[in-house]
């Protein structure tokens, strides 16, 4: 196979030319060490397998329905709760709480991370207390939070915020501390102002860390609902589950868990989607 005669200025670039694209393509087949190309929807495989396992175990009686309700029972329950509107309502309220908490948590966490990441004084003052905060069990803080902020929405949103800001802080902090010194030097030599430095170097450089923190934060916000919606709430999926727990309504509890699982998967997926878009400049093993 010798060189085919090609036009001097091809109408179509050769690599896009359908005729050539169909041509022989024999490349050295060295072993590929990375994970290879991303495949769409492959992420569904694991959850699907889990679901299949659950269904199978339930159908064959391996899994006692008294321990874990069967998937179809859960689906039926979901149908009922959807029909009478309870599930949507509770979800909507919960989403609002989680969303607010998430928002404030992100803002607070990112700001603290910036201050603590960019100045040694800020770090000395902020970092220790944050580490202490995250070392103290959240449940133990609730009485204090009630004391200072009452039992209303403020307190609920604040509790979520307090849970959410920690991973955002930690990850953003680590992300920006991990920025290659070479880019900091560059910023100095082109005379970037402090704000421009933050905008052009620090924030984009800390982005990968921030996104990872966000992944912790979104699921964290949902999970916090279990705790905060036990306190003076009359709605929300946390409340719904607590109620079901009181009355031993296993099917609703399992439905709640399934809802958490789905919410977790979806929010995590959404963050990762955003991450891929925002970090398209990266050339990493992730491919």
């Amino acid at each position, binding site marked *: 196979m010798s060189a085919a005669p090609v036009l001097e200025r091809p109408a179509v670039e050769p690599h896009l030319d359908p005729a050539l694209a169909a041509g022989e393509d024999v490349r050295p087949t060295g072993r590929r060490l990375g994970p290879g190309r991303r495949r769409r929807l492959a992420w569904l495989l694991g959850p699907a397998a889990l679901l299949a396992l659950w269904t199978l175990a339930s159908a064959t009686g391996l899994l006692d329905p008294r321990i874990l309700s069967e998937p179809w029972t859960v689906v039926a329950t979901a149908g009922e709760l959807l029909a009478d509107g309870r599930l949507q309502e509770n979800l909507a309220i919960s989403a609002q709480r989680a969303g607010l908490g998430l928002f404030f948590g992100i803002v607070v966490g990112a700001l603290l991370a910036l201050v603590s990441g960019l100045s040694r004084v800020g770090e000395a003052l902020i970092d220790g207390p944050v580490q202490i905060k995250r070392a103290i069990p959240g449940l133990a803080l609730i*009485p204090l939070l*009630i*004391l200072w902020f*009452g*039992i209303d929405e403020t307190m609920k949103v604040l509790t979520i915020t307090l849970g959410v800001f920690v991973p955002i802080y930690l990850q953003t902090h680590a992300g920006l501390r991990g920025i290659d010194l070479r880019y900091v030097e560059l910023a100095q030599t082109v005379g970037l102002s402090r704000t421009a430095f933050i905008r052009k170097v620090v924030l984009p450089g800390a982005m990968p860390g921030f996104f990872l923190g966000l992944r912790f934060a979104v699921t964290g916000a949902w999970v916090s609902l279990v705790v905060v919606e036990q306190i003076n709430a*009359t709605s929300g999926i946390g409340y719904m589950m607590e109620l079901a727990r009181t*009355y*031993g*309504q296993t099917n609703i*509890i399992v439905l709640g868990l399934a809802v958490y699982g789905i919410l977790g998967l979806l929010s995590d997926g959404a963050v990762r989607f955003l991450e891929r878009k925002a970090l398209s400049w990266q050339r990493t093993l992730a491919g």
Partner: protein
Amino acid sequence: GGTATAGNPTSQASFAPLATSVPAGTTITVGDPSIRVALELSGLIKDLDGTNVKFANISGGPQTTEAFRANALDVGSVADIPPIHATWTGLDVRIIASAYRQDAVNHPLYELGVAPGSGITKLEDLRGKKLAYSPGQAQGALVLRILEKAGLAQDDVKLIELPSTGDAYSSALSSKQVDAAPLGGVQIKRYLAKYKADGATTLRHGLRDDPGHLYSPAKVLADPAKAAALAKYAEAWGKAQRWIEDHPKEWLEGYYIKDQGLSAEDGQYLIDAAGKRDVPTTWTEAIERHQQTIDLLAREQKKPQLKAADLYDTRFEAIAGTAFAAAGKGGAA
């Protein structure tokens, strides 16, 4: 009375007599979710017009005491253990209304769940067995009382500390991690429905576990305006108890099914299990029983003695009971 941590509790004498009218602008925050529903369903809520009542969805010991400390709640609805623990932890509280069950021994809140195959058929069989025990909760106190009744000391059984969240007790029983554990409400029905085939049973303990109280911080009761508002609430509360008693259908429909999301069957089970209500106009007997519980807990959990009478605000003694009785005669709204 009084304890090491209790500071100086307000004495009953320092409370001014209850005012007959509620000063304008008085607001009370009430943690009494089920009665709120009853008041709404029955229309009795109108009785409270003129008083600013804010309902919070808070009930049970730990949550109400936390909210009391935070000044976020003026009155809460609990069983007989929380007022004791609150006092022990330095929070001065008073009971202002109490409701019981008629024939309480046969209408218990809790039954003792027995694990399949553990061979417990009477309380004495508990000797040497593993019992789920949650020291801070009403179930914990009940376990101690059951042991006392069976003539057993703590050492005669193996107490397994386990919080009774969700269906943890039912799980622990069915997997035979414990031999017996107190189960309450629908959990009893569910446990039997699930595991009866395996040999699971429940055991009646034959004790009264029926007290239900409204209680408030003494600090709140010392405020004449709030005290007057609370009196008004106690009255409505008594009427609501009567209304529930007289309207089981509406209660089933409006509370258990609509508000709590239970099936009609489960709701009916709970209504049947509760039997008839008893809201006495005098507390003497109740205080005596309360004192026994206190004595037991103080002994078994090594806490200071308390006088049960100190836990009650006698200004309110007749209010709820009278309203309950009157509503019964006149027929509720």
